[in-house]
């Protein structure tokens, strides 16, 4: 074990080897570790399958010389679930892939994943900022199984592709996908904003009640339950586009466009909107 006994706010947790079973990291948030020494952090108990083991069994813990509350994970964490779950401040950086439930129910702070994330990333996220530089699995920005509401605040950036049911039951916040999105994008969307730069799968906007879907790249054919409105939406479009332009890449040229607008899903109130700028 690296590090020392000095209490600090920032830690590097380097995964030694891939755990045999799923390893649950929920509750291991930057603010909860702040003030602990690396020895104390290593003594924290984690669920590994159905047994509890000390964190030090899996990770090398190193205290970092930083005043801010921060955790840096290194290694292949694709079997580690719940990273940043319930986080309410500070920063988490994952150097590599991460498992399921990353950033679930987070309320504040920032998470950056340099690799890809598993299923249910940012589900029920309520605030803060999360960026996944790779792909996210199914049900990102959606609801926890059995819950009625999905993501409800904050900003989710997915630089790669998203799986199916992205933003299912989402009700607030912004979720951006730079790549493609799978089937049932924004299904049962309650509200909030989703922007996609790539292709989308089947049944996009299925059961969408309110909220906004923006297609910065390929323009999908709206389904029969979405209908056009011809009025001038330049004001709200400029506000939205200027916010997205700051993200760059495929969103960089949106401000100069004039979108077509469709409303739907008419089978579910029809107050959702698709903005098709190309």
């Amino acid at each position: 074990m690296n590090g020392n006994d000095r209490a600090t706010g920032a830690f590097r947790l380097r995964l030694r080897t891939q755990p045999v079973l799923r390893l649950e990291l929920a509750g291991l948030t930057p603010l909860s570790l702040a003030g602990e020494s690396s020895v104390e952090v290593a003594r924290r108990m984690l669920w590994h399958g159905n047994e509890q083991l000390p964190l030090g069994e899996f990770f090398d813990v190193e205290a970092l010389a930083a005043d801010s509350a921060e955790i840096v994970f290194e290694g292949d964490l694709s079997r580690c679930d719940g990273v940043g779950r319930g986080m309410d401040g500070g920063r988490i950086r994952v150097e590599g892939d991460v498992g399921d439930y990353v950033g679930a129910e987070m309320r504040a702070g920032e998470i950056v994943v340099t690799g890809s994330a598993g299923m249910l990333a940012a589900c029920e996220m309520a605030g803060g900022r999360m960026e996944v530089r790779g792909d996210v699995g199914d049900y990102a920005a959606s609801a926890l199984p059995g819950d009625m509401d999905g993501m409800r605040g904050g900003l989710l950036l997915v630089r790669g592709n998203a799986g199916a049911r992205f933003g299912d039951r989402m009700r607030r916040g912004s979720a951006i996908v730079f790549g493609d999105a799978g089937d049932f994008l924004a299904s049962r969307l309650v509200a909030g904003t989703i922007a996609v730069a790539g292709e989308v799968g089947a049944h996009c906007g299925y059961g969408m009640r309110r909220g906004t879907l923006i297609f910065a790249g390929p323009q999908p054919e709206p389904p029969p339950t979405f209908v056009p409105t011809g009025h001038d939406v330049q004001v709200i479009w400029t506000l939205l586009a200027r916010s997205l332009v700051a993200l760059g890449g495929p969103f960089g040229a949106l401000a100069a466009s004039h979108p077509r607008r469709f409303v739907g899903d008419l089978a579910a109130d029809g107050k959702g909107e698709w903005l098709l700028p190309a």
Partner: protein
Amino acid sequence: MSAQMRSAATIMQINGITIDDTFAEAFPMKATRLVITAHNATWANHAAVALTGFATSVIACGCEAGIERVLGSDETPDGRPGVSVLLFSMSGKELAKQIERRVGQCVLTCPTTAVFSGLDAGPDADRAALGKNLRFFGDGWQISKVIDGRRYWRVPVMDGEFVAEETTPVVKAVGGGNLLILARDTDAALGAAEIAVAAMRALPNVILPFPGGVVRSGSKVGSKYASLPASSNDAYCPALTPLAKRTELAAEPGEEINCVMEIVIDGLTDGDVAAAMRIGIETIVGRGAAAGVRRISAGNYGGKLGPYLYRLHALLGKEAS
């Protein structure tokens, strides 16, 4: 510009115009800035003029409001031409009421307009509703959109949709800074007032709420009629120079003062009001006494009511000794 002490140590003359050794007395107010945009500058201006109409004095208008400046399309949140307006009231509650009424009747109604908060006062600032209550005009069809932490309301209307930011910050401000222009005749007083108003309106963070920026009915506190809180400032009325118990217009023969105009200034900060008063005085005295201005003075209540005192000599950087 030449300054000289005329006789007594407290008398200052610049270019033949006397600057009275007195001060303007101003009061704390609550204020906000709104940015109104529209399809073109004409319609933004229509909305701004209507919004700031009948807003000359808190005595009976509820608020004092004015156009601060015209905004280019590169300066507004939605990239359209706009106008920034400032509204001042005596309390945050009254200001909120005025915002709701005025935006509801004058901006929501005006073709193609949108309205935004124009102040960045931080998350802890007091805030007044902007679109927050007006959204109910949408009768359930209104849509909320949060963009970069700011909530906007989109209300369907007959020309498309009315977009209004949900709230606007309310900040402490200063109201009632003033200048009195004492002149030979009407032409001289108006001419001086007009150029001073033009110079003062070029500054940010201030408005001159009276018609054309000028008020001719300066008031004093109280009245012989018990029901009136304010009445004509008889000490500055040339019609009463020989009659009133106290006059401020006594003058040597050939130096008579036959017309007085007042410019009232509301500003977001103490410094903004002071800057406007300073440039107003400098603009007037820059033309010299030949243009007909005899004196520049200011209105106050003896310094007992308002916490902000603007000494004219100090504003000019020439403290009377």
